[in-house]
C-alpha cells in the first residue's frame, strides 16, 4: 500500500477500514543469503538498501525484541553532519543527503525537519576551532555558517549571554541539520524492506554462531538454527556480547547515556542547540517537550538506566545556559547503551571470519548516521568492498595508527 495525501483523505471518508499492518510477521526460513542481526535503525536500513539499491534477495533481519526497540527508540533524534576529520565528514554528509531524500525514497513520513543546529562557543580560540570545523564541512560539500553573538541573540534571546564562566560569543551553525522522528525512521525502513521481500523476524535472539574452517554457516537463535551465506551484525550497544560468539574482542566499551524530556511547553526553541562547554544540548519536540541531554555516565554499563549525578550535571548545564529551564518540570528520563569505541568513531568492516561482517562502535552518534550506515554496510555485504565514504572505518586502524579521534582523547572510551 502506497501512502499519500489522497489515501489519507479516502480513508478518513471511509472510516479508516482500509489500513493494513505495515509489515508481515514471518516465521524464519531454514536459510538465507543474508542474515542481518539487529532490527534497529542500522540493521533495518541495511536490509532496505541491500534489497533496493543492491538488488539482493533472500534477506532476513533478526531482532531479539521488537523492531526499533533499542537505541533507535532511545535517542534525542538529532541529524547533522558537522564533523571535522576526513574519515568522518564525507560519511556524515552522505548521511545528511540521504536524510534529505529519505521520506520520498521509502514513502513514509519520518518527520525530517531541517530546523538548523548551532554549536555555541565562548572564547576566541573556540571561535577559531569552530571556523576551522565549518571550513572542513564546506570542503566536503556540507553547509556551515559562523554566527556572531547578536545573530545568536536574535534567534534565542533568552540565553544567558553573560554567564561569568562561559559567555556566549557566537555559534557554528549548520542550517541543514535538525531532527527526525526516530521511531518513524525505523518503521519506514522496516516497511520498505518488508515490501521488497525481506523477512523481519522479531523475538529471535542470536545465541551462537556456527563457524567451520573460518567460514560462517549461520546463526543459532532462540527460534532455531538459521543458515546464511553472509551475516551482518548491527547491534550497537550489545556488539561485544554478540561478536563474542565469534570469539572476537572489540575495541569497544558499553556505556549508558541518559536523555531527558520536559513537560510540553509552548514553542520556544525552533532549532537544535548544543552547549558543549556545559555538557548540555537541547531541542524542542513537535509535541512541545524540551528534549535534552549531556554526557555519558562514564562507567561500563548495560543497564539502560543511569544514575543521579549525571542528571544533576545536565540540569546544571541547562540552568547555566537558559535559566528559565528551571521552571520546567522533567517528564521522563531514560538511558540507552552506547558502543563507545576507542577513538569515538564507528567500525563498518569484515571480520577474520569469512562471511561475517560487523557494524558498530557508533558511540552516541548513531542516529544521524542511520541511512549512510545502512547504505555502506549493504555496500560492503553485497560487494565485499567498503563504500567510498566508509573506507576509514576499519578494525585495523588502531593497529596501523590511523585512529579517527575527533576530540583527540586517546583510547579512553568514556571521554569521547
Amino acid at each position, binding site marked *: 500500500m502506497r501512502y499519500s495525501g489522497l489515501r489519507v483523505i479516502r480513508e478518513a471518508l471511509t472510516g479508516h477500514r482500509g489500513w493494513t499492518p505495515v509489515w508481515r510477521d514471518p516465521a524464519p526460513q531454514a536459510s538465507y543469503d543474508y542474515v542481518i542481526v539487529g532490527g534497529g535503525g542500522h540493521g533495518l536500513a541495511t536490509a532496505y538498501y541491500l534489497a533496493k539499491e543492491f538488488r539482493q534477495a533472500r534477506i532476513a533481519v533478526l531482532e531479539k525484541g521488537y523492531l526499533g526497540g533499542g537505541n533507535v527508540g532511545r535517542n534525542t533524534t538529532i541529524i547533522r553532519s558537522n564533523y571535522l576529520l576526513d574519515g568522518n565528514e564525507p560519511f556524515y554528509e552522505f548521511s545528511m543527503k540521504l536524510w534529505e531524500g529519505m521520506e520520498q525514497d521509502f514513502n513514509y513520513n519520518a518527520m525530517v525537519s531541517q530546523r538548523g543546529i548551532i554549536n555555541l562557543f565562548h572564547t576566541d580560540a573556540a571561535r577559531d576551532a569552530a571556523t576551522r570545523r565549518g571550513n572542513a564541512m564546506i570542503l566536503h560539500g556540507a553547509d556551515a555558517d559562523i554566527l556572531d553573538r547578536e545573530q545568536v541573540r536574535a534567534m534565542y534571546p533568552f540565553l544567558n549571554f553573560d554567564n561569568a564562566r562561559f559567555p556566549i560569543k557566537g555559534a557554528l551553525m549548520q542550517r541543514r541539520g535538525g531532527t527526525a522522528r526516530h521511531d518513524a525512521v525505523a518503521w519506514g525502513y522496516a516497511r520498505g524492506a518488508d515490501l521488497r521481500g525481506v523477512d523481519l523476524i522479531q523475538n529471535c535472539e542470536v545465541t551462537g554462531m556456527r563457524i567451520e574452517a573460518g567460514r560462517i554457516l549461520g546463526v543459532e537463535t532462540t527460534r532455531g538454527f538459521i543458515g546464511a551465506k553472509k551475516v551482518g551484525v548491527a547491534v550497537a550497544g550489545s556488539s561485544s556480547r554478540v561478536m563474542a560468539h565469534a570469539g572476537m574482542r572489540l575495541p569497544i*566499551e558499553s556505556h549508558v547515556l541518559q536523555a531527558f524530556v520536559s513537560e510540553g511547553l509552548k514553542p520556544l526553541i525552533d532549532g537544535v542547540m548544543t552547549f558543549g562547554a556545559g555538557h548540555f544540548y537541547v531541542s524542542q519536540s513537535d509535541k512541545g517537550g524540551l528534549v535534552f541531554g549531556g554526557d555519558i555516565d562514564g562507567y561500563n554499563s548495560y*543497564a539502560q538506566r543511569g544514575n543521579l549525578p549525571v542528571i544533576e550535571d545536565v540540569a546544571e548545564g541547562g540552568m547555566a545556559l537558559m535559566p528559565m529551564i528551571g521552571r520546567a518540570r522533567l517528564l521522563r528520563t531514560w538511558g540507552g547503551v552506547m558502543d563507545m569505541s576507542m577513538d569515538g568513531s564507528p567500525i563498518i568492516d569484515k571480520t577474520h571470519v569469512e562471511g561475517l561482517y560487523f557494524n558498530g562502535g557508533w558511540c552516541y552518534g548513531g542516529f544521524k548516521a542511520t541511512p549512510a550506515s545502512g547504505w555502506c554496510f549493504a555496500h560492503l555485504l553485497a560487494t565485499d568492498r567498503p563504500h567510498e565514504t566508509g573506507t576509514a572505518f576499519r578494525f585495523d586502524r588502531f593497529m596501523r595508527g590511523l585512529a579517527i579521534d575527533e576530540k583527540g582523547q586517546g583510547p*579512553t572510551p568514556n571521554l569521547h
Partner: protein
Amino acid sequence: MIINHPLLGPRDAQEFVYLGDARLIGRPDGMDEGAAQAFHDHVFLRDNPAGEHRELWFHEQGDRSWLVVTRNTVTHEITKVELARDVARALGRSK
C-alpha cells in the same frame, strides 16, 4: 553508586574517576616478541562483559588511591572493592 573504600569506608562514586577494565594493570612487556600486537590488544581491545566486571577507579576527590571495584554492569551492584596496589602486587608487579 556507593563504593566501599577499603581504607575510608563508603564513598560516593562521584568522588572517583573511572578508568576501565582492571586488566589494564597487566601491562605487556615492550621487549617481548610480538610486543606491538600485545600492546594493541592491551590498549584497544576489551572483554566488555554484561555482568561481573573488575574495573579501575581512582579516588581523585579523596585519598588518591586506585581501587579495583568488582561491579555488575547490568545491575550496577558492587560486590567487592580492593586496593589496586594489592591486586597489582599479587600479580607480581612493583616488587
